[in-house]
């Protein structure tokens, strides 16, 4: 092993890719936390964010900072719509047996997958399967030299955004009334309902916030990558899922830490193995975590009903 500047560059490369995973994992984990069920359509919200961002950029050429609030709004709308179509119908029974039913909850696994496939195919129909280029003025690809190390400006933006998102979410969850509601529903939906929390509204809020983060992630990664396509959400979605599981399912800081760990491990592994094997590293880490830390690296070890 050589600890030279190339190795340091690999660590930085790994952190950049880890930040991309983390950006997606944040919204993903937030939504998982409140319902304890995977939202397969998160990758599509991410893609919608990217496409809406690109459409606005090509149509109006606004300053980049003006694109962000719009993408946030679109994210919120798609999150609310998604909850309405794929999740709400499975909560229409309010008796205790249905509320505790695993089957009712896990049916949303498939309904969210269905929404994800339908959305992706519609986007394919509208935009085509091709990669779409981003106008060069908006690309976050300028090389930035930090001593002998090179990073893209997008990596720095994505790193900063992940940090801000994480901080803001922690504030929301632990310092506000809404956050208290989200945590209560996440802990025990039935109990939360009994103490008078409007669970439906809390869940909708969570989807809106989670999807706002997802859509922002999509446009940022698109600007950083230089190209977007209707399939762009899939690969980071899988990595975000792995990071979430490794991090203990509902711990957002845990998911972020694991996303960075995944990125750096993949990147350093490329030094020793052919990069075709890097997914092996990801899934080995997942298996090792599950065997030795069944609650995840940052899990609370609470009982899951």
């Amino acid at each position: 092993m050589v600890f030279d500047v190339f190795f340091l560059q690999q660590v930085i490369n790994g952190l950049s890719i880890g930040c991309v995973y983390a950006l997606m994992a944040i919204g993903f984990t937030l939504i998982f936390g409140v319902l304890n069920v995977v939202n397969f359509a998160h990758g599509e919200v991410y893609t919608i964010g990217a496409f809406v961002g690109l459409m606005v950029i090509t149509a109006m050429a606004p300053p980049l900072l003006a694109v962000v609030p719009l993408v946030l709004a679109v994210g919120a709308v798609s999150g609310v719509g998604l909850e309405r179509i794929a999740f709400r119908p499975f909560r229409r029974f309010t008796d205790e047996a249905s509320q505790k039913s695993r089957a009712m909850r896990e049916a949303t696994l498939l309904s969210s997958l269905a929404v994800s496939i339908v959305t992706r195919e519609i986007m394919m129909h509208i935009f085509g399967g091709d990669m779409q280029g981003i106008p060069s003025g908006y690309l976050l690809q300028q090389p930035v030299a930090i001593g002998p190390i090179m990073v893209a400006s997008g990596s720095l933006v994505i790193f900063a955004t992940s940090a801000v998102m994480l901080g803001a979410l922690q504030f929301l969850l632990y310092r506000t009334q809404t956050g208290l509601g989200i945590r209560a529903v996440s802990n025990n939906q039935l109990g939360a309902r009994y103490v008078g929390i409007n669970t439906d509204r809390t869940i909708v809020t969570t989807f809106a916030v989670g999807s706002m983060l997802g859509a922002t992630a999509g446009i940022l990664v698109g600007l950083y990558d230089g190209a977007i396509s209707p399939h762009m959400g899939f690969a980071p979605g899988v990595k975000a899922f792995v990071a979430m599981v490794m991090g203990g399912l509902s711990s957002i800081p845990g998911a972020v830490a694991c996303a960075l760990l995944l990125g750096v491990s993949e990147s350093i592994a490329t030094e020793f193995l052919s990069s075709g094997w890097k997914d092996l590293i990801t899934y080995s880490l997942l298996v090792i975590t599950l065997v030795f830390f069944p609650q995840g690296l940052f899990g609370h070890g609470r009982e899951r009903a």
Partner: protein
Amino acid sequence: MKKHAVFGAALGAVVGAMLAATAGATVAQAADREIVIGYQAPLSGDRSQYGEMFRNAAQIKLEEFNASGKLAGAKVAITFEDSKDDPKEARNIAHKFLDNSKIVGVIGDFSSTVSMAAGEIYAAEKMPQLSQTASHPDFTKLSPWQFRNITTQAFEGPYNADWIIAAGKKTAAVIYIQNDWGISALDGFVSGFKAKGGKITATEAFNPGNRDFRSILTKVARQKPDVIYLAMFYEEGAAFAQQREQLGIKIPLYGTSSLYSPKLIELGRESVEGLHLATTFTPDNPDPAVQTFVKEYAARFKSEPGMFAAQAYDAVGIMLDAVAKAGPSVTRESLRDALAATTDYPGVTGATSFDPVTREPAKALAKMMVKDGRFQVVTGP
């Protein structure tokens, strides 16, 4: 009892309808035989952009052919099936095409892996198959029923290796996509490059769908090769070139013909400047056949056709000419023989001939490089 009567009546109606349909079909056949070519390609999923180009180009060629009157007494139609770039789907489609007695030949699929999955079935059931893009060496070795009109990596790799050596560059790193095609591209180039005295510093695979090449670039740059040879498609090629620029790596890029697409420049912009590749098709070719195709394609589909559209256009042309040669009473056997006899088909990707024994195509490649934001033909090394 009453139920049975109702069921009987329904059955009677269905059988009657079926008989009527069959009779109708026979009448139509007597008037003007309908010959069908099956076309399987990824029309959905993340390789669907290729399937779309194939379908677009095929439609243009088919209309030209039917209007040309080359085949009297029959009309040719193409039926498209979506293989989703998935070997399982491709096998299902193969069975479906085989069961349709009107289908005398098949074009497709897109990738070598998927084409070969379907090809095994066509080989066993004796259906001529012509792939516009499957360039894995083993594809045509499946059986005498497989054809392709794209040059293989066994031909292209050594061709590019000669070109790089002639330019005075002695060491190369190869980055390839981890699939059948990528591995054959790697083998073709590495054996050709070593045979000419070149040295390979590294070979790095990446998984399909990968968008981050920074780790590979960092690893490869450490050994400072004279060139980086890319065996991949334009989406990855553009991302690779951009990330190379971001990391400040100046090693020149060479690549396989699969990178040749206007989209490479659209996505990669300045970062792909100086990339070298050799290809069969260029829309700038002054040949009138090429210009007609380019204008027609651009007028209908609002985009400039790339190598893939051109390959499909020629594959359909070769197939249809073989049908015309075999005549209106064409069968799967006679179509195969007519395909095998293809010599100097005047296509937009250069005159194509099939070797009667190996069924491999012979073509000339044009050397190109990206200069001032477009592909330009290079003369000399």
